[in-house]
Every structure is written in structure tokens, then in C-alpha cells.
């Protein structure tokens, strides 16, 4: 039963993945002029041989549907084209920059989930009282703040004015990055036994993590509050209270467990928004991830690089949604039937 459910979900996401490649293909053809003008550096333009080579490689002289098949074939070989700002294959660039983004998004998620759920619980337990109003306000502010502006403010206050937290970058400039194994500084530094680098990495994650996670925090708090309120009004909670359980155990032990099921879905969905938000946050914090890579590429109209990032984020987004879906089915068996 469960296996069937999982298999069905995985099959359902395949057309979506194909759809994603269709969209990026269409976007790459939106360029008003010859797509080659966007893809090739100016120098290569003057060499007719190079132009001809690229034309053949991407089949630009063939009909559109054949071009799409060529595009798909290249994708399956991991060929995302070549970035003309870094002059490396986009796939190589993404492998290089992606771990930094994942590390940042994980930090943001940690903050969003812990603070979001805590705020939501406070809100629901003391609903319509001062604590609730405050928690709701914090959640709404989190949802309303433009992430790039919040990042600038946070740097200005906590780094420049107060000096409490480190500035941009993944580690202090006085330190050397740990030897690359996974690309995650937190893990690599521990593997290399460099404890000072590990601590410094954590330090550098705090500010961008909170900035990036603030939107997801607000969403999670709102979701937790409303679903906990709903659960708290159910009969089995009344029973638990009637048999004399301490309120704390009723809320944490009985109600929250069920209330968190819808929150799981929201956490999955907001992970996509975290990857997207990373585009802007990384720019502010000079964070060498795929977001900053994409923005650098955008200012130089380096389309293969932008589309590579777009494709990668969309694919991760689909996979995260798939996992969320499956997790939801495991947590709430009623879903599997539907």
C-alpha cells in the first residue's frame, strides 16, 4: 500500500520534470536576437568556425522540436552549456557553488522551524491574548520583509554598528577554507579536525541564516498556530484534559504531534522559497553559492548560467515536494487512500 503510494508519486513527478526542461528551453529561446548572441562571448562571434560549431552542437539550424530533443540529450549528459563569465561548464560551476547554498538554506530552515513552531505554539496556547498578538505580529513582519533589505539592515546593525556578528562571507578572511570533501564548510572543517574553522563557519551562518529564514519562519508560525488551534478544539483533547493531564502534556504530547502534520507540508514548500530567497540573500552576504552565481550571471546576461541555476532549483524544488508528499502520506495514512 505504502510502496504503491510512493511509486505513484514518483511516477507523477516525471512529467513535471520534463515540463521544467520545456520551460527552460522556451525561456532560452525568448532572447530577441539569435540565441547565440546571448550564449557566445563577443570574441567567439568574430570566428565563423566557432559560430558554426555551436550552431551544430545545439542544432540551431534544425526545427524547434529537434532542438528541444538535442537540448534534452545534452541535459541528460549533464551538459548545461558553458558560462561565459566563468568560462567553465555550467554543471561544474553548479557543483562548486551548490553546497554553500544548501548549507545556508539548512541553517535558515533550522531557524525557521524552531522559532516558527515555538511562536505558533505560544500563539495558539494563549490565543487572543497579548502573547498571541505579539507572536502574530512577528510572524507577519517576517512574511512582509523584503529579504534583500532585511539582509542589508542586519549587516548594518549587527556587523557594522554593534560588531556582534561577522560580516559577509562563509568564514573570516584570516582563515583558510577547510580542504574540500563535501563542500559544506561545517562538515569539511570537522573532518579535517579544524575546530576553530568549524566555529567560525557557524558564526558566519547565523546572520544570513536568520535573514533567509525569516519568511519561512512567519509561514510556519502561522500554519502551526491555525492547525494547533483546530486540534485543541477536538474531542480527544477535551478527554485528555478531563482525565486531569497537565496542560503542558496535553499541548506538547497530544495536540502538537497531530498539529504538526500540516506543518510538514509547509516546511517542504518553504524549502523551495528558501532556495529562491538564497538568490537575493547570497548577494547581500557575498555568499559564494548558486544564488550569487545566478545574480552575477544575470547582470552580465550570461543566460546558460542563469538557466542552469533555474533548472537546478526547480528540480530540487520538485524533489523536495515529492519527499514532503511521501512524508505526509506516512504521517497521515488517510492521504494515501485519496
Amino acid at each position, binding site marked *: 500500500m505504502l510502496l504503491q503510494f510512493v511509486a505513484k508519486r514518483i511516477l507523477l513527478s516525471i512529467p513535471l520534470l520534463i*515540463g521544467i526542461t520545456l520551460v527552460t528551453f522556451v525561456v532560452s529561446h*525568448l532572447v530577441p536576437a539569435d540565441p547565440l548572441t546571448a550564449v557566445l562571448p563577443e570574441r567567439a562571434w568574430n570566428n565563423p568556425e566557432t559560430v558554426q560549431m555551436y550552431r551544430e552542437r545545439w542544432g540551431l539550424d534544425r526545427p524547434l522540436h529537434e532542438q528541444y530533443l538535442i537540448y534534452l540529450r545534452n541535459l541528460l549528459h549533464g551538459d548545461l552549456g558553458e558560462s561565459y563569465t566563468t568560462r567553465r561548464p555550467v554543471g561544474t560551476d553548479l557543483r562548486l557553488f551548490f553546497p554553500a547554498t544548501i548549507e545556508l538554506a539548512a541553517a535558515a530552515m533550522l531557524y525557521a522551524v524552531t522559532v516558527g513552531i515555538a511562536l505558533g505554539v505560544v500563539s495558539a496556547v494563549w490565543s487572543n491574548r497579548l502573547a498571541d498578538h505579539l507572536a502574530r505580529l512577528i510572524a*507577519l513582519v517576517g512574511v512582509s520583509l523584503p529579504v534583500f*533589505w532585511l539582509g542589508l539592515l542586519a549587516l548594518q546593525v549587527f556587523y557594522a554598528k554593534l560588531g556582534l556578528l561577522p560580516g559577509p562571507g562563509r568564514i573570516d578572511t584570516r582563515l583558510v577554507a577547510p580542504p574540500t570533501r563535501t563542500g559544506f564548510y561545517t562538515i569539511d572543517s570537522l573532518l579535517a579536525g579544524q575546530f576553530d574553522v568549524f566555529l567560525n563557519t557557524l558564526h558566519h551562518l547565523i546572520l544570513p541564516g536568520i535573514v533567509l529564514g525569516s519568511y519561512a519562519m512567519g509561514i510556519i508560525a502561522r500554519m502551526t498556530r491555525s492547525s494547533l488551534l483546530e486540534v485543541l478544539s477536538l474531542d480527544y483533547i477535551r478527554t485528555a484534559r478531563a482525565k486531569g493531564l497537565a496542560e503542558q502534556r496535553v499541548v506538547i504530547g497530544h495536540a502538537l504531534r497531530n498539529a504538526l502534520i500540516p506543518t510538514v507540508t509547509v516546511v517542504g514548500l518553504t524549502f523551495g522559497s528558501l532556495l*529562491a530567497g538564497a538568490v537575493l540573500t547570497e548577494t547581500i552576504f557575498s555568499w559564494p553559492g548558486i544564488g550569487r552565481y545566478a545574480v552575477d550571471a544575470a547582470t552580465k546576461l550570461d*543566460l546558460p548560467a542563469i538557466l542552469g541555476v533555474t533548472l537546478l532549483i526547480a528540480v530540487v524544488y520538485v524533489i523536495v515536494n515529492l519527499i514532503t508528499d511521501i512524508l505526509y502520506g506516512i504521517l497521515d495514512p488517510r492521504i494515501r487512500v485519496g
Partner: protein
Amino acid sequence: MTATTTRVSTTPLAARRPFWESPLGQAARELARNRAAMAGLGILVFWILVAFTVSFIVPFDPLKTDVSNRLSPPSASHWFGTDDLGRDVFKRVLFGSRYSIPAGFLTVLAALLIGCIVGAVAGYAGGWIDNALMRVADMVLAFPSIVLAMAIAAALGPGLKNALIAIVVVLWPEYARLMRGQVLAVKAHEYVTAAEALGARRSRLLIRHILPNTQAPIVVKATLDVGAAIVLTAGLSFIGLGAVPPDPEWGAMIREGQRRFSQWWMATFPGLAIFSVVMALNFLGDGLRDALDPRRRGRWA
């Protein structure tokens, strides 16, 4: 024939009731009681007024430079300080509303129109048309909005107009989905079957009977989306794909402010303007959701 359809389309009960007792009137009263929503509405109206009147009221050229006055911090003569070319940041922020406010409303309006037409057609037609239209919507929805908007804006080339087109492209599918779901739900109701049995034409059915019953969730979504569209516009300008620097667009101003890190006022105030509009729209959207759906009153999210 015509006589029959006319009788079906008028709703005599609702017509005789005074406005305040109609469902819409009740919702309006509910909304008026919600202080946060009213505060939001107030701030929003303020910004709309500023956006439409500032160029007539404030004698100021947002592009004119005054180098002798550059980078001065906030003071009595320059409330929000001046930027690196000596331009008054306060007045530029006011003029910035002429970009962000219409951008937010127009993109959402366009996305809403496109999405609702697509969704209504899909829901009403069903079959392969429905399937094809919804798969296209799914494809766009598979991308986080800022990322796809960035790719489209980059492909079309930088500029505010292209940024707005990109935003419309990423916003319409959710309306299509909402609208389709609504149409499907309403289509199953007996009064639609009745009108159909009486021989009402399909287009007339859709416009007179189905559409008026699908508004509430879409209105709420649109209100919240205006804020999202304003942030998206500013975000694209911030990364250099929207409004181009001399223009006093809020996102572009923050971009300039980022480069002048120690002159904190350059980025802080335009951002505060964005935040105030978005917060206002969120308050209003939440209030509308509560007011339009009686079951949700007192709840939240």
C-alpha cells in the same frame, strides 16, 4: 427563450435585501471591525494617493543632482538624507511609489485576468483542453517565482517593462488553478444545472452564474499578491534586471544603497517604504480572508 434566461439570472431575494444584510455587506462590516485590516487599508490608500499626486504636489525632479549636497545624513532639510549625487532620498522615496504601486497592481491585474480566463475555460470545458492548460500551469508553478522571473527577465533583457512581463508570467498559474477549482465546484451546483437545462448559453452561464460565485478566494489571493509583486519588482531591480538606476524605483534605490554601505539611510528608507506597503497588504488580505469566509473568523493563516 430570452425571457426565461433573464428570469433565471436575476436573484430576487438578494435584490430586495438592503446592502448591509447581503453577504457582501456583512463581509464589509466584518472587515471594518478588523483594526489591523483597516490600518492596512489606510496605509495602502496613503501610498496610492502619493503615487498618483506626488508629481503634482511636490516640486522636485527625482533625477536632478546636487553634488554640493552629496551623502548628507538625515537632517531637518533632508529628512531621509541625500544620496551620492546629492538627491533628496525622502522625495525620491515618494516618487518611487509611482513605479512600485502601479507595478504591483498592474502585474496582479494582468495575471488575474489571464489566469482567470485560462482557469475558467479549463474548468468549464474539461477534457483535453483542461488537461493541456493545467499542465502548462503546473510547469510554471514548478519554479520558485523569483528564480523563473529572473531567468525570463534576463532573457528578455533588463528594464522595468520586461521585469513586469516576467512577473505576470510567474503569477498567472495560481489564479488559473484557483479559478478552475472554483468553476468545478460551482458547476456541480444545482442552479447551474437548472440554468443549463433552461437553455442558457455556455458563455452566458460562465459569466453570469459561475464567475460571481468564485470571487472570494481570488480577491484574497490578489490582495496578498500585490505585495508579492511589489517585492518581486524591487527584487529584480535590486539584482539589476528591473528599473535602471537613475530612476527612483525602490529596489533600484536599495541597490545603490548597498554600494554605499556606510550611508545607511540610502537603502533603509526605500526598503521601509516597500515593507510598509507589503505589511499593509498582508493585514488587509488577512482581514479580507476572515471577512469573506465566515467559517474562518477569528482564525488565522
